[in-house]
């Protein structure tokens, strides 16, 4: 049985100090099943209790000062060693299993001494994790999370691995959107003809996840490799991942994507080409052995492995099944199992650890561009950590892990086969559930209810003002420790506001509308790209994609700007509304596409439009909207949207962050705050009562990018609110 073999080995190794130390043989302890806390008053509680003294040394037999020494599982007993490495602590037998005295120190592997006794000083050797980070180390396979008989993480942490496998961390490298944006390809076109018709180039390039494999792809729309490098990926050039590319033209700028998305690439940590990820590094992304090889976090450095995440892969030659002496960094002090090589790093339990990647201030990456002057310290393209830091959930009690790695009430400890009577060096000690974290890395759409469903609360105020209905919608971020949305700046939240009276749906007549964030099949400015002719709208770009039944939403710039609360730099109270970058476009009306011809669009409806109005081609919001339905083009609808709008050097909005040099606006909803928007609707006489309904959609991927790249983009209904006006 492999299981027994491995565990036996663990026991024998963990007890190596027995022979060399001065510990006594087993003391004939009696099995005590009472776990009552002993009296600290000297009262006889009937439990075995005695002083333990000893010395903590390193592998060179030098005393270790400041080492943590404790009874396994009993953090309250912990003492620090003196300058000479000595310690004294009080042991009371309160647990089942085999007790041990554990020594640990940051930067060292924990070790333990079992079978100790009174009046018998003990010695424990803790081995320092010698630097530097070992680039020759091969990241280990955590297993599949199903087979607990394998000699890997799944052996003892089966459910943790299983949970991880279903997480976004596991998909971090192979995520097709990442791969497409990196190589600069679109999967919307699957053959040479359609690709060429769309203006792309059908070429051979790297098959993601393979070491040498290639595949034909449609290179279209730009990407990290073609946009950041010269000599490849341009017009008339081979793709940057083409196998035929000359050595001199091969890309050297990789956008630091792999530093967070593919930390498991063996070799030098950081600065790697994402296409070097294959095998484990591709298949399971940010996996067990990558996170638990992070020795420390240095927030002063750029995100990712080899920089902010300081790696500490072991160097010291191992024996037997171990090429190197194992080390796994983690948040528990007393993990002396030598298979783990547990090395205490308290940052695993704090938000700082997550900031290793979920906080990013980026320089201008495209050659020839520079950041707008206000971003002297870098453009904040990811700021989840700082959003939490500045919000009401900033507390040691509620770091990121609190929600995203919820406590596990079903296990004795992280070694899920541990029974209480098995507590020992090998199996660890029973932990409070708050110290057993599920490795779900729960994202916004995970859980029941989904995390994102617990984030927002919508309230609607409605009143009449003569011939119109006025409404104010408040979206409060009540349940989230960071802004909504957060993380990847492609994410947005769209608010739709509808009013319906007895006479039917009311037309929006004033207030805010959904900006381009809401998506459009095409957009134009009347009098410029589109011209109103004799019964037709001359709009070539619109006509190219329009179909009967679609609608054109017309909105008008007001010159007024939304003075939203903002977050990060946009929360600066001295910043004027105009500088916050969200001009209010008022609703003008909708026209329905009746026919499309080479001459233009034949439209139905009555709209008083003027040159300068903005036109968005979209589709009606369905009466029976479904959670998780395909994203719809909704720009111009009564409502608004919340997003961090990144700009590239050409002024394009909603660009992927590797292209960004500036931020037009950031009205995402801070934690503990609410966002307000105002809207009005025409109220025909006698149409009341009127119901106003607000629907909030979470949109992980911008619609325009999804269409261009051939991605499956969905909208999730995450909150609603409604209110009625009675005449």
């Amino acid at each position: 049985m492999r299981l027994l073999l491995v565990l036996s080995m663990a026991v024998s190794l963990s007890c190596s100090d027995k022979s060399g130390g001065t510990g006594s043989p087993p003391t004939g302890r009696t099995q005590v099943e009472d776990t009552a806390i002993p009296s600290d008053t000297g009262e006889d509680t009937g439990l075995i209790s005695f002083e333990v003294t000893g010395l903590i040394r390193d592998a060179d037999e030098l005393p270790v000062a400041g080492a943590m020494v404790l009874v396994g599982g009993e953090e309250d007993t912990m003492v620090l060693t003196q300058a000479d490495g000595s310690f004294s602590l009080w042991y009371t037998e309160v647990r089942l299993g085999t007790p041990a005295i554990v020594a640990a120190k940051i930067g060292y592997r924990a070790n333990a001494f079992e079978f100790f006794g009174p009046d018998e000083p003990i010695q424990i050797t803790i081995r320092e994790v010698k630097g530097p980070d070992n680039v020759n180390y091969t990241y280990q396979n955590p297993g599949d999370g199903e087979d607990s008989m394998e000699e890997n993480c799944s052996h003892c942490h089966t459910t943790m691995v299983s949970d991880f496998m279903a997480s976004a961390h596991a998909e971090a490298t192979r995520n097709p959107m990442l791969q497409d944006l990196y190589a600069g390809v679109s999967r919307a076109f699957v053959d040479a003809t359609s690709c060429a018709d769309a203006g792309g180039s059908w070429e051979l390039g790297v098959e993601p996840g393979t070491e040498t494999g290639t595949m034909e792809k449609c290179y279209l729309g730009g990407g990290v490799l073609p946009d950041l490098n010269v000599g490849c990926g341009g017009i008339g050039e081979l793709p940057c991942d083409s196998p035929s590319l000359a050595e001199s033209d091969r890309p050297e700028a990789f956008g630091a994507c792999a530093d967070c998305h593919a930390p498991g690439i063996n070799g030098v940590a950081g600065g790697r080409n994402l296409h070097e990820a294959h095998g484990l590094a591709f298949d399971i992304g940010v996996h067990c052995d990558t996170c638990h090889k992070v020795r420390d976090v240095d927030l002063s450095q750029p995100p990712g492995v080899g920089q902010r995440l300081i790696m500490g892969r072991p160097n010291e030659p191992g024996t037997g099944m171990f090429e190197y002496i194992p080390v796994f960094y983690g948040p528990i002090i007393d993990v002396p199992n030598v298979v783990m090589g547990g090395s205490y790093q308290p940052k695993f339990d704090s938000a700082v650890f997550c900031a290793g990647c979920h906080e990013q201030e980026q320089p201008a990456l495209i050659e020839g561009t520079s950041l707008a002057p206000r971003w002297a310290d870098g453009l904040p393209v990811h700021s989840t950590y700082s959003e939490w830091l500045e919000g009401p959930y900033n507390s040691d009690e509620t770091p990121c892990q609190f929600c995203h790695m919820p406590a596990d009430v079903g296990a004795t400890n992280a070694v899920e086969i541990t029974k209480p009577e098995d507590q020992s060096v090998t199996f660890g000690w029973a932990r409070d559930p708050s110290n057993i974290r599920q490795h779900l890395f729960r994202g916004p759409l995970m859980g029941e209810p989904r995390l994102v469903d617990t984030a927002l609360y919508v309230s609607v105020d409605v009143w009449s003002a003569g011939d119109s209905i006025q409404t104010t919608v408040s979206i409060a971020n009540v349940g989230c420790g960071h802004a909504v949305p957060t993380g990847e700046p492609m994410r947005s939240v769209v608010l739709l506001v509808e009013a319906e009276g007895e006479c039917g749906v009311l037309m929006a007549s004033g207030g805010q509308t959904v900006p381009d964030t809401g998506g459009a099949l095409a957009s134009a400015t009347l009098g410029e790209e589109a011209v109103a002719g004799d019964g037709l709208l001359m709009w070539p770009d619109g006509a190219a994609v329009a179909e009967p039944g679609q609608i054109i939403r017309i909105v008008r710039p007001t010159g007024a700007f939304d003075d939203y609360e903002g977050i990060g730099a946009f929360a600066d109270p001295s910043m004027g509304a105009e500088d916050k970058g969200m001009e209010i476009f008022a609703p003008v009306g909708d026209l329905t596409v009746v026919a499309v011809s080479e001459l233009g669009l034949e439209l139905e409806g009555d709209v008083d439009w003027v040159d300068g109005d903005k036109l968005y081609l979209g589709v009606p919001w369905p009466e029976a909207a479904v959670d998780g339905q395909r994203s719809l083009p909704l720009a111009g609808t009564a409502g608004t949207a919340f997003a961090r709008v990144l700009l590239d050097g050409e002024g394009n909005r909603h660009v992927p962050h590797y292209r960004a040099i500036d931020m037009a606006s950031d009205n995402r909803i801070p934690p503990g705050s609410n966002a307000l928007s105002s809207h009005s609707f025409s109220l025909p006489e006698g149409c009341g009562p009127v119901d106003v309904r607000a629907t909030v959609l979470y949109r992980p991927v911008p619609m325009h990018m999804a269409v261009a790249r051939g991605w499956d983009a969905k909208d999730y209904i995450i909150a609603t609110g409604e209110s009625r006006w009675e005449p």
Partner: protein
Amino acid sequence: MSRPTIAVACFVLGLGCKSGVERSGSKPAAGDDSGAGFSPGGDTADPQTDCENLFEPDTIPAWEDASMVVRPPPLEEGLPTLLSDTPLFVDIAAGEVHPAMVEFEPQFHLWSDNADKRRWAYIPECETIGTADLNDWDFPVGTRLFKEFSLDGVRIETRILERMGAEPWQWAQASYLWNEEETEATRVGPDGLENAKGTTHDIPSKTACLSCHGSAEFGGGRPSRGLGFSAVQLSHSGSGMTLAGLVAAGKLSHPPEAIPTVSIDGLDGQALGYLHANCGQCHNSTADRVAPIDLDLWLDVGVSAVEDSAAWRTTVGQPTAVFSDQHVSDRIVAGSPEDSALLYRMAERGNNAQMPPVGTEFSDPDGLALIAEWIRSMP
């Protein structure tokens, strides 16, 4: 203070004691020198030989072969499948409750959408409740707390909280769904049951149970876990077991010298009590509270002036920490219930503003009126 005898304890609690045998208390808590216990002199009786618990704790579910099992079974699987197999009833069909069960009635009620509730406690005969902290009782292993829910005269469910082990989280929680004949009830799975027996009443999921009877990691709670069986809730002279009765029975490791009462009169006292029962289980000052909100609506023993209460200090004139809306600013705006977030959230249902977030689908009209009147009365 005189020490009660076992005779008193048995008389008051109806516990299954050996006839005529005096006994001393169970193991006192650390530092206990109060001499609390059951022996009148505290000098002769041997707790290990003279006392016998009528009902031993249910067994924490056993592991099978470690090489075959990858997860420990949840605690509730150690509970009987049928309610008739718990100690609650002698004759479940006849509705005859076991005399060892102590019926009790908290003086402030948790709103449960107008459900009628009955409650019983079983405290092992040979044990005392650790009351070194009178606000957070440490129930002995083997304690069972039962709560029966009925709607319009129909028995729907009976919930159990049982302390199975000494670790703070070793409480099993489950609910039993009554059959149509009300002759038996069967344990419901961890997902709970919506609209039980065709009513609007939901049997909570395990997650929902833990969100009040758990700790911060699961939504909120208090170390005591058993929320309605407490010093404040039993400091009354009404029916059922009271704090005075427990003291007289010697069931508290640290009996108070005088029976505390909620000495805040009238509207203030009623409002604080309501918040205590309906909100304080999560919003309190313990490490198990819902984090990280500094909102304390638990009423501590001994508070004698409304301005000294945690509820007053952490609400009146205090801006909301993680909730803001166009309608409200502070948790409580003195004199203005319509501007007070606390009342606003109490009134909401079916969305993320709802408070409490579990256990209710309809707001409590009497509770809303009480708190509104209280806020309106504030200077």
